[in-house]
């Protein structure tokens, strides 16, 4: 039931929400998380961010994360979209949507999806700084701790 996509193109949360819920009257609750590019990182101004990924493994891990969410909460569908390539500050990066009859299931599943996506899907961010140079974003312990609240993705 999950829709999982990796794409360079932008997405629209309104269109994705309609695609998830359109024509259905059994849902009731949609929780979502939308991540966008910030123009500041560690006190340095960012002019762009490039998302690299591992084609093949990315889709597999995203599908597994979605299936895990569907096993843990009574979901009627979920959507995971992650952009790749070069993005500018303010642009969309990632969207998760979780639909359920129950609002806490929808919100908790959205939190789970983004926490695991950040720690178990093979994406890497490279930042371009306004004062010159580039740098790969380092994984944060807080992301690991956040994901670990939900248990651990196999092997990650």
């Amino acid at each position: 039931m999950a829709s999982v996509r990796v794409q360079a193109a932008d997405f629209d949360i309104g269109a994705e929400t309609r695609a998830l819920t359109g024509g259905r009257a059994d849902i009731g609750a949609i929780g979502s998380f939308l991540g966008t590019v910030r123009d500041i990182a560690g006190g340095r101004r960012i002019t762009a961010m490039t998302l690299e990924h591992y084609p093949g493994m990315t889709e597999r891990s995203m599908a597994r994360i979605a299936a895990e969410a569907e096993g843990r909460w009574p979901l009627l569908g979920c959507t995971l979209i992650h952009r790749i390539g070069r993005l500018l500050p303010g642009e969309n990066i990632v969207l998760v949507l979780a639909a359920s009859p129950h609002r806490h299931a929808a919100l908790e599943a959205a939190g789970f999806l983004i926490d695991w996506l950040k720690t178990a899907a093979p994406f890497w961010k490279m930042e371009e700084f306004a004062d010159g140079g580039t740098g790969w974003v380092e994984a944060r312990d807080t992301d690991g701790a956040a994901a670990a609240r939900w248990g651990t993705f196999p092997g990650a």
Partner: protein
Amino acid sequence: MGRGSIKILYFAWLRERVGVSEEDVDLPEGIGTVGALQDWLRGRSPRHAAGLVTGMTIRCAVNQEFAGPDEAVRPGDEVAFFPPVTGG
């Protein structure tokens, strides 16, 4: 003397340091785990040694599944080395 080739992939700063994104190598006798493969690859060139640093900072996947250093590698496998992920 090799037993067959495996495909090695590098991502993010590992790819930049090693200087290639993908290479096919003949898996030598005696190399049967991710950890042993990583040590052996480090000997291929100074750039490999600079990319495949030892320690906690490198992650690996075998056939697109996360794998620890004790995980088995066999001819025909696809093995990827990369930094901890930072998407989302």
